[in-house]
């Protein structure tokens, strides 16, 4: 088998790209993973077969055989990974990131930078110990469409991220130097990254300055722990444990206790997952968009460029009400809807109300109302017509007696705000230009009561925006107006290359650099909004 890079049929121009390899430790990390997977699968799935083999061979020889097989698999996995590493290359050009992979089945993937939805630097525990990182470039192509560059040296990954973001924003290496000097100087806490920039040659290894960023909030660990305690799974397990203990004592049989093991394991996994992803959660604003950092063992640094957030949801369960905590989630087209992707869809795991406002402001600097704080209060906790919301009519009490008064919708100049849930409060904000398609739905009962539900469809993710049980004529009018509004908003929306816009987005960026809570942010003047 030839391990040389034999190009698949392609245009000649691609040979001229600056093809680069991943870090040489990659195969070791990957081969190790394959070995663990193999041992786990064999150990769990085929333990009976193993026992039979052990019985026939005798204990001493069985161990030798097992050790040999594991070693063999390890070597094969490592060699395969090494060969795969040799053919795997990537190149960054002005318009796209190219990735060539595959030993037997060659694959060439090209991610267009103007379609870039998010850039993540992920460091699993082992890679982190070795100072390596994985760069994920998310494009909106559904599951498995991301370009994953694993593994790179940490510094290389961050430099590459800066380069890719600068290219995607539409600034070259020279301009990248110029940009930080503008907005950064007025922001007081400019990142030191601005100091290390010097214009490099475009072809060889240009130096791109990372956009300056400014931290806007941070999740304290005690609050995270308390928020987990104040959630349903631990209490559920506690109740289950108490019930099981009481029952088994009453019945004089402890066999029932074993039923609890999966429940306790499940709750433990849930708690660990929450802690692991929520720990050291920090968010920063930068001209390149929202930057999130989080993770305990596996750390993740996400950059979501401006305009890539499709919808935001602020939600609160009944147990969080006392502390006024909110979970803020976002839909980003690249992240998709599966469990792994959901890790990236959290904008704030446990926000106070003020932080929730800041999180919302990160996504949508201009909420399109004169008093954003007041509007936010009405959206989060208001009932009926508070804050100018259009509520569900009284007749909706027949279909939703409990949370009828919370159903409501508010159209601002820039976004659609939908409010729902009495005990599980939820507020969804969809910027007008991010609406994909909209719909009106009506069931037989709703029809009787002259009600209809208004739905807007968003990209895959945790947020699915809808308002139930509006008056049917209100809903129909909303549908009509919203389709028009979405169209107008799209027409004036910023370009895909977010730094290429004339003056307005730079002004936005300046505002970002001097991050303020939403109350202090005046609507951006001079930007054509409808």
């Amino acid at each position: 088998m030839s391990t040389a890079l034999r190009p698949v049929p392609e245009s000649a121009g691609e040979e001229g790209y600056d093809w680069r390899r991943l870090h040489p430790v990659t195969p070791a990390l990957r081969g190790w993973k394959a070995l663990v997977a193999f041992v786990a699968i064999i150990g769990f799935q085929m333990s009976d077969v193993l026992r039979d083999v052990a019985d026939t061979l005798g204990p001493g020889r069985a161990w030798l055989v097992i050790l040999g097989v594991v070693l063999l698999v390890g070597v094969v996995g490592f060699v395969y990974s090494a060969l795969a590493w040799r053919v795997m290359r990537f190149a960054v050009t002005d318009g796209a990131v190219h990735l060539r992979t595959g030993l037997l089945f060659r694959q060439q993937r090209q991610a267009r930078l103007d379609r870039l939805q998010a850039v993540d630097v992920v460091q699993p525990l082992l890679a982190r110990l070795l100072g390596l990182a994985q760069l994920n470039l998310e494009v909106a192509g559904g599951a498995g469409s991301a370009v994953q560059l694993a593994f790179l040296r940490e510094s290389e990954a961050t430099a590459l991220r800066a380069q890719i973001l600068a290219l995607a924003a539409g600034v070259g290496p020279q301009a990248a130097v110029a940009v930080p000097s503008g907005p950064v100087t007025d922001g007081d806490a400019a990142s030191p990254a601005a100091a290390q920039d010097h214009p490099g040659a475009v072809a060889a290894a240009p130096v791109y300055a990372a956009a300056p960023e400014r931290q806007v909030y941070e999740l304290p660990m005690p609050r995270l722990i308390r928020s987990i305690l104040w959630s349903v799974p631990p209490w559920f397990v506690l109740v289950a444990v108490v019930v099981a203990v009481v029952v088994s004592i009453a019945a004089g049989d402890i066999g029932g206790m074993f039923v609890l093991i999966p429940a306790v394991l499940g709750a433990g996994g849930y708690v660990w997952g929450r802690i692991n992803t929520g720990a050291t959660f920090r968010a920063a604003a930068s001209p390149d968009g929202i930057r999130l950092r989080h993770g305990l063992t596996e750390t993740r640094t996400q950059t979501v460029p401006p305009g890539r957030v499709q919808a935001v949801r602020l939600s609160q369960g009944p147990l969080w009400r006392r502390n006024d905590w909110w979970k803020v989630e976002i839909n980003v087209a690249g992240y998709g809807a599966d469990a792994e992707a959901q890790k990236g869809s959290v904008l704030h795991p446990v926000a106070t109300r003020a932080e929730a406002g800041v999180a919302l402001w990160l996504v949508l600097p201009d909420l399109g109302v004169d008093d954003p704080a007041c509007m936010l209060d009405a959206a989060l906790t208001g009932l009926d017509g508070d804050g100018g919301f259009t509520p569900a009519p009284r007749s909706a009490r027949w279909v939703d007696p409990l949370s009828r008064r919370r159903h409501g919708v508010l159209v601002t100049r820039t976004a659609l705000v939908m409010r729902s849930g009495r005990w599980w409060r939820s507020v969804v904000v969809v910027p007008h230009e991010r609406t994909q398609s909209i719909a009106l739905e009506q069931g037989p009962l709703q029809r009787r009561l002259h009600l209809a539900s208004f739905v807007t469809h968003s990209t895959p993710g945790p947020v699915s925006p809808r308002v139930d049980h509006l008056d049917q004529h209100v809903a129909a009018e909303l549908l009509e107006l919203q389709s028009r509004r979405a169209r107008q908003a799209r027409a004036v929306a910023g370009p895909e290359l977010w730094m290429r816009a004339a003056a307005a987005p730079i002004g936005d960026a300046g505002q970002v650099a001097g991050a303020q809570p939403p109350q202090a942010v005046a609507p951006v003047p001079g930007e054509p909004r409808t």
Partner: protein
Amino acid sequence: MTTTPGTQGSASGADPFDLHDVPWTAVSPRLATARLLVLGVWAVVLLVPTVALAAALDVAWLWAVPAVLAAALLWGALLVHRQVRALRYAERDDDLLIRRGIMFRSLVVVPYGRMQFVDVSSGPLARRLGIATVQLHTAAPGTDATIPGLPPTEAARLRDRLASRGEARLAGL
């Protein structure tokens, strides 16, 4: 049955699903034939074994199973024509509207600029009957923009038109 037939035709302002001055186009009535044929196949598949079983075992209450199934199928068959009549679409300057359903009604508005791709599909039965399905895909999986029961020429025209309009109004995500 608790619903009244869809109020198509009677352009009354009272029905919120009848957006004013929207020229709705109905789909081909051959779609009803196709759906009835499918229902017929289901009837055979479901009723023959259950009836045979009830007859073979000679247990009185077992006859309830085919009876319930037959009633459900009959009801479905009665609804098919009205459902097909209720399925309508309209092309506006900037978006495509699709409305469907009698009891559970929905109206979807898909802006052309949001379209990612268009599917035209047609199974063996549909091909024989001369109908095709056009489906629009946006970046949102929730967008249910399917128009079944279009004559192939209309499907092709719609596809090309949607594609060209989508290109003209192309936006990112």
